[in-house]
């Protein structure tokens, strides 16, 4: 079975503008991963084709790209998830600077993640044993802790597209992870960071992040919990 990938390419050393190149590839069946097809294009047709990947099963978060206009992981998207009768359009994640081909500069994304103090702060001396936490309280964190920092959510958000300073769903999700951890003492500092027009309030519940998240995290729900917390703190 032949499928066509229409891949956006851009080499900063040669090109002034990104352009599209079509690769006609051989797919075994409709269960083939888009990542396998990208590999085929690179290894058999054009070695200059450049993209990130590592674990190849949706755990490491390296290969977030835009497939037919929608952010997904190349390794978790199979041919049957898209219309492969027509050329499949492959582009880098939107709204981040393009380094080369499908690779974007994620340093801004990481800075936003670091801005919410993504680590447990507990000012009391650690006990000899674990800090106790009920399983219900622990499980409240699990959905947010699934995040693999692939960037699909933040770069799918229209608020991010128009405001590069918007901290974005991924960082807000991380803020939730610690604000609602019963062992944490720094919720207030984190809430200060996100209680700004460029923080949680820039979220307009569009749900693009939820649609994009490859780990099926309902990010908007988590942000809504943060907003409620912010509002309660204010009142």
């Amino acid at each position: 079975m032949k499928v066509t990938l229409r891949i956006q390419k851009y080499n900063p050393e040669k090109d002034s503008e990104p352009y599209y190149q079509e690769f006609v590839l051989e797919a075994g069946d409709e269960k083939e991963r888009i990542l396998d097809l990208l590999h085929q294009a690179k290894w058999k047709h054009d070695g200059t084709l450049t993209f990130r990947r590592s674990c190849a099963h949706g755990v490491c978060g390296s290969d977030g790209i835009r497939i037919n206009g929608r952010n997904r992981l190349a390794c978790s998207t199979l041919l049957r998830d898209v219309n492969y009768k027509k050329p499949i359009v492959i582009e880098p994640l939107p709204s981040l600077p393009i380094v080369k081909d499908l690779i974007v500069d994620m340093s801004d994304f990481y800075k936003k993640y670091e801005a919410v103090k993504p680590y447990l702060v507990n000012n009391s001396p650690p006990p000899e044993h674990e800090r106790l936490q009920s399983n219900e309280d622990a499980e409240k964190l699990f959905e947010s802790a699934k995040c693999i920092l692939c960037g699909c959510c933040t770069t799918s958000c229209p608020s991010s597209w128009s405001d590069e300073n918007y901290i974005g769903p991924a960082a807000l999700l991380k803020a939730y992870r610690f604000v609602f951890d019963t062992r944490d003492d720094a919720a207030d500092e984190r809430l200060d960071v996100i209680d700004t027009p460029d923080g949680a309030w820039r979220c307009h519940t569009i749900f693009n992040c939820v649609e994009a998240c490859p780990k099926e995290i309902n990010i908007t729900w988590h942000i809504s919990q943060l907003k409620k917390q912010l509002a309660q703190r204010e009142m």
Partner: protein
Amino acid sequence: MITHQYDVLIVGAGGAGLRAALEIPEGFSCAVLSKVFPTRSHTGAAQGGIGAALGNEEEDSWEWHMFDTVKGSDYLGDQEAIEIMTKDASRAIIELEHMGMPFSRTPEGKIAQRRFGGHTRPEDPADPDSKHIAVKRSCYSADRTGHVMLHTLYENCIKQKVHFFSEFYVTELIMSGNACAGIVAMDIATSEVHVFHAKAVMLATGGYGRVFRITSNAHAGTGDGFSLVYNSGLPLQDMEFVQFHPTGLWKLGILISEAARGEGGILLNNKGERFMERYAPTVKDLAPRDMVSRAIITEIREGRGFKGSDGTYYVHLDVSHLSKEVINDKLPEITGFARTYLGVEPTKEPIPIQPTAHYAMGGIPTTPNAEVTKDKKNTKVPGLYAAGEAACVSVHGANRLGTNSLLDLIVFGRRGGKAIAEFIKEADFAPLPADAAERTLSRIDKIMNSKGTEKVGALRTELQDKMMDKVGVFRNENDLKEMTSEIKSLYERYQNVAIDDKGKIFNTDLIEAIELGSLLDTAEPIIYGALVRQESRGAHSREDFPNRDDKNWLKHTLVFKKDGTPKIDYKPVSITRFQPKERKY
């Protein structure tokens, strides 16, 4: 070329590297290099849990944990190191919890634990000959334990303001006399070569799964650390011990945890027979990983496998008879993989699986303080450390128990970090050779300007196919001898490799070409180790020597590269508490 100077350099930002970085005290400079962004490291793929005799759910003791680990290692693990690890396990887990790791909890709010393959306790602790039964020892966080552990460690590194060089690819160790003086690395984003001058270097570069065609490991798992050491004339230990996990998704190798069988899943051949009944009549599908892998390959070889669309074979893992609740609540991630990648609905149909290269028991020989050693007398290499899957302490011996890999990372990562912290207080920078980056520069130059005819992808596939077929679950002298000449010819052809991308920006074509060199450097000691070891022990199974031979082979193998050819030496096993016995489950 840019030169940096750091007191400590850690190569690799997975569990071991990050844990070590947290031990470097303030006032000393420390940098962590990684060829991927830290949270992309393969530690994040671990599912099951971390073993520790916390005793939160039922009575347990570190000695029982130690016994299980020794037995699991088929008595090849160094008992001194295993004792250190199992004794330190509880403290290490508590520490992770204090760092913020979100564990699943017991009703009392303690860290929850569950059963896992090979972890047992005596039914009657008073009776030394008591039967051993499964114990709840694996501390977990749903089925994403490795993921949350990796993130917790990275988060703590941010808190401590650890300096990272992300997407830097290490090409060489700089040796100055006997000591390590730093490393040479390439900034992937620009192809610029950087020299890092350091008092201490830790290699925490992970495994080499990508030497094999079917692997659960990431594409990044190309054995770079092994290659660095091997090319510096230092030995690699026990490389023949490669753990093949029995249940990888067919073709893709993605791991289906043994929890699937733990919950009642069974293995079936093309006749619909539950074939494990023949290989392990008592424990059946829950036999140890090495045994089940061998059984699957035997079934396929004898014509009882299923032939896939691409001509390769598999058997079935059937969980469809289990209740929907068990499948969806206890095996969500696993069944999700089957749905996503093979389009198989596990509640209705069996999952095609095959053994998948999973874990490197062998690696860079180290002391229990992660100090790299270079011979049978454990002579240390000043300034060089290794931890994690890249290292061979050796706590896993010939076969690793589930949940012990994550434990290995945090225990020996921390010990290595502490040893480095001590070392750098006294030590000085070893002099940096003037031509430190020469070899790397000329190597890059050669690949970039090569007009050769060999393609990286094709050569790599050939290596992976041959390793899978001839150095896989079963080995024999003929195949291995053939492989020694194969690897020679692959090395020669590698000299003739050319790439398409001649640019400097993010040249992954170049990176893959260098990685292919690492794969070859890793494959060679695996082949030679497997060839010399004339016995079957743990994961190493010789058809021509089907039994374990403690008289001749209760020893570690060391493979060195000398004048371009591999040389073998041996090292004794540390046996302190448990004398070798037959390994029966």
